[in-house]
């Protein structure tokens, strides 16, 4: 027993040691060693972010240098604090508290003392820098905007959040990342790939040379430059027109689905979200809960489309063979629905309407009649509803479009389930829901969906998913998502009478936009006037109508299709119609011939209208004068 006691203990201890060692070295071993190793400092070399150009190669976004004043607290020698503070624009308290913070973080490692100096401050400071031991200047790259517009489309970049860091291990603390718009969607293309350098350190955190002689180091890959489909001139012009108005404008090239302009009003100068004042500016914009400048109305303003939606019902009527273009429906300055023959109003003036005049005079009665015929064709209301919904949805309405922009909103195209929920199963008929035939009531769309719908009409039956990226490094995009046609359920020939009606909106005397035509260009358009309500102190209150407009031109070979939504702009021919006319002329001709019209649009604002619900006093809506 005594002879083997010690041997057994030796063997037992040997097994214990080997067990513990295998636990440490084999089971706890993490392959991510190099990043966790305190003896290796990882230095990143950040590539320049890719530039952004518009469709014509005009620069939109580039980079600019900013200068951070860094401090290594241990190396700081007594200095003329007053002079230093004056140079960098700090007060003494802030200077001392920053220095203290840096010291707490680490006396040996650099901390930011003053972030993002302007070029001017930098120039002044640099000459005196040698006097301030322990301080040095580090260059950083920030975005520079060569436009005052398109803030909503371009998006902005800012420091990664802890959530970003958890989601994507590529990012390091303090790195910049696209947060919205193009900067976010094409982040991977724009940012490039950072280079890595591994430095061997000692336990005092001093560098003692490259790790493994630099064998694992990589060079940064610069970000790629991208060309957007945006037309800088049109975008900036549209934003100028939107001054003082709220709403959204989306202009597409129907032949490709390219977004020519994506305008949301009110907007802001993208340069506000760069540099030292970034977060102050952002808060100011973000917390403006009335005008909501950071809310992209072109993608997210989900409203009833109003009369532009009528053309879809006309198309469905034709496709379902329940109506012919020549067939007439009488308008009694309105129409009667239901067993009680309730009268619903119409503003077209009354009389017999065919499809053509139904469209250009925007007759509610005509489309209510068409809607009835669609439902009469089927024995069951449910079947008719399904058919109707299928046709509407084929225009890209009622769901996310799948653009390369923030997702926006789905919009709403109600179906039988929706109405069953409201009225009960089989307890509703077409007359309950007739409002949707002229785009009021339960239907809702966003401006980009309307623009896409217009493009589908312009193309006589197909569209390309709207997108904002045109080229990467000069190579056109090939993603089939954006280059393949999506067909509607309507036959090509059925578009002809519809487009004729839309053309007559401009050309016929009674057309709802007949005074807004552009000389020398054939435009097809459709006005919309959308009733809307809000709650003021809990009371449902009607506000001035939204002004809607869709149009495309030229009819023979459509180059631009647009949808315009102006909050509380009253009838469609007012603000939205004017802006549509100007935008089309600007894009197709390059300049505006009707200077008075342009001047009027540039000067008129709706601020008074927007102030009404907040005034606390009674107000009148839909004022005649403007």
């Amino acid at each position, binding site marked *: 027993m*005594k*002879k083997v*006691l*010690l*041997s057994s*203990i*030796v*063997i037992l*201890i*040997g097994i*214990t*040691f*080997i067990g*513990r*060692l*295998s636990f*440490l*070295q*084999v089971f*706890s*071993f993490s392959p991510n*060693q190099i990043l966790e*190793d*305190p*003896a*290796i400092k990882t230095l990143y070399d950040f590539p320049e972010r890719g530039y952004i150009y518009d469709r014509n190669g005009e620069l939109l976004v580039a980079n600019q240098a900013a200068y951070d004043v860094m401090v290594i607290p241990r190396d700081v020698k007594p200095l003329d604090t007053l002079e230093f503070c004056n140079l960098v624009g700090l007060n003494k308290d802030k200077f001392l508290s920053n220095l203290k913070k840096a010291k707490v973080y680490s006396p040996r490692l650099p901390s930011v003392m003053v972030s993002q100096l302007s070029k001017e401050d930098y120039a002044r400071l640099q000459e005196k820098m040698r006097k301030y031991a322990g301080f040095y200047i580090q260059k950083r790259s920030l975005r520079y905007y060569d436009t005052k517009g398109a803030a909503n489309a371009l998006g902005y970049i800012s420091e990664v959040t802890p959530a970003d860091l958890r989601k994507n291990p590529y990012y390091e603390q303090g790195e910049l990342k696209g947060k919205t718009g193009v900067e976010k969607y094409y982040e991977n293309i724009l940012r490039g790939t950072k280079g890595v350098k591994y430095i*061997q*350190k*000692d*336990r005092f955190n001093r560098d*003692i*040379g490259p*790790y*493994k002689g630099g064998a694992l180091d990589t060079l940064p890959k610069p970000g790629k430059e991208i060309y957007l489909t945006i037309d800088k001139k049109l975008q900036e012009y549209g934003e100028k027109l939107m001054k003082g108005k709220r709403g959204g404008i989306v202009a597409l090239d129907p032949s490709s689905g390219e977004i020519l302009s994506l305008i949301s009003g009110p907007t802001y100068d993208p340069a506000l979200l760069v540099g030292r004042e970034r977060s102050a500016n952002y808060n100011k914009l973000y917390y403006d809960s009335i005008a909501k400048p950071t809310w992209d109305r072109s993608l997210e303003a989900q409203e009833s489309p109003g009369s532009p939606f009528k053309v879809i019902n006309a198309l469905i009527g034709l496709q379902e063979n329940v109506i012919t273009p020549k067939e007439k429906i009488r308008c009694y300055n309105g129409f009667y629905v239901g067993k009680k023959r309730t009268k619903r109003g119409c503003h077209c003036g009354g009389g017999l309407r065919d499809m053509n005049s139904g469209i250009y005079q925007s007759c509610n009665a005509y489309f209510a009649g068409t809607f009835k015929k669609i439902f009469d064709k089927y024995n069951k209301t449910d079947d008719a509803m399904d058919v109707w919904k299928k046709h509407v949805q084929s225009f890209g309405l009622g769901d996310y479009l799948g653009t390369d922009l923030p997702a926006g909103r789905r919009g709403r195209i109600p179906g039988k389930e929706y109405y069953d929920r409201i009225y009960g199963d089989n307890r509703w008929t077409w007359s309950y829901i007739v409002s949707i035939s002229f785009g009021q009531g339960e239907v809702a769309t966003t401006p980009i969906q309307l623009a896409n719908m217009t493009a589908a009409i312009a193309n006589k039956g197909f569209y390309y998913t709207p997108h904002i990226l045109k080229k990467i490094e000069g190579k056109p995009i090939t993603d089939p998502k954006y280059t393949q046609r999506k067909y509607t359920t309507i036959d090509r020939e059925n578009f002809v009478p519809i487009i004729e009606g839309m053309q007559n909106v401009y050309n016929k005397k009674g057309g709802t936009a007949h005074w807004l035509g552009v000389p020398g260009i054939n435009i097809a358009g459709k006005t919309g006037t959308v009733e809307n309500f809000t709650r003021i102190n809990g009371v449902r209150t009607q506000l001035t109508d939204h002004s809607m407009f869709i149009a495309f031109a030229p009819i023979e070979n459509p180059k631009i299709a647009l949808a315009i939504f102006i909050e509380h702009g009253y009838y469609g021919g007012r603000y939205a119609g004017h802006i549509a006319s100007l935008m089309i002329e600007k894009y197709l001709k390059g300049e505006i011939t009707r200077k008075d019209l342009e001047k009027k649009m540039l000067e008129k604002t709706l601020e008074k209208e927007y102030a009404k619900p907040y005034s606390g006093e009674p107000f009148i809506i839909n004022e005649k004068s403007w």
Partner: protein
Amino acid sequence: MSSKTLLKRIDWLTVIIHFALVGIGWLGIYSSTLSEESYSIFDFSTYYGKQLFFICASFVPIIFIFATEANLFERFSSLIYVTSLLLLLGLFPFGKTIAGATSWYNLGFFNLQPSELVKVATALALAKYLSDIQTDVKKRKDQLYAFLIILAPIILIVLQPDPGSGIVFFALTFVLFREGLPLYYLAIGLIILLIFVATLKYGTIWVVIGISILTALFYLTKRASFKVSTIPIILFFITSILISISVKFVFDSVFEQHHRDRFSLWLRLEKDPKKLEKIRKTIGYNTYQSEKAIESGGAFGKGFLQGTRTKGDFVPEQHSDYIFTTIGEEWGFVGTATVVLLFSILLLRLIFIAERQKNPFSRIYGYGVISIIFVHYLINIGMVIGLLPTIGIPLPLMSYGGSNLLGFTLLLFIFLKLDANRLKEWD
């Protein structure tokens, strides 16, 4: 005895393992102290240069040992022991203080640490005393004398103060067990240790409850088979509880703060994981860094001279007490397992050799050698891989240090000489 027969009788396995460990150790020292500026391995201003010199120099005592008569060691053991105690005493007036401990004589080119040599002397003296025909370990008086031989150097070393080196001598009590000291001494020691640790970890109340239950169970099971006297059980019960109660006093008043920290780290006495992590990185810095360095080596290591934490000097005292971390980082599990195996084989081989001695002096001395090497190996590697609290003693044969190397070389080769001579005892 001709030199030819001597060479045949030397246990070459032990010699090979000895030099393998010394060699691996030197590579570790080279890697952990190599700096950009120095080039030659014979540069005596560097640790690895000095250690290489010590390794070469260790051949002098080896040859000397083999050249002398084997029975000289037995004959002069008392003299050697007394001289070594005098050397320890001499430290108080003449010693050199490094890091707070007056443990060295300054010999100009080299600092001699006599406590390393006293291990040899004590092992010899203990062997001499126990092998005496008149000594009987079963007798209390003889036990006391044996303990005093062990205790004298401990007291002198702890006073330096170098408690780590002092503790090592307790290992020599193993020798007494081999020579017939009843095992219940060991059991009592282990129980006291267990009660101490358990009280720290779980508190007096739980330990008292535990002891009560165990004692009751013991009594009940034993009573069923045969009659037992209750007095020893009651005595044991009361002493255990007294020990458990006194633990808090010892821990708070006798221990110093850094001892308390080491225990609280080892036993994870801090419950809050954040605070524990902080303790690991501050008080437990050494252990934290050494564990991390070993862990980062993985299965196959980063390669010789490629250890980033070694190069970055993250592990303190890496060339001496923490030499094992260099092996762990650069050679991985393969390296550390090899070292553990080498030590295990060495110890088992030495036990085998000791058991084949006919002369009790040789056997007892052998057990002294084994105990001392084993305790160094156990405490050092246990500490480095985080199984035991931090006690600063070197890893035999591998850690940097001339006295350390000299001490273990003497210990081992005197034993090998005795072994080589075993058949010629009566010549």
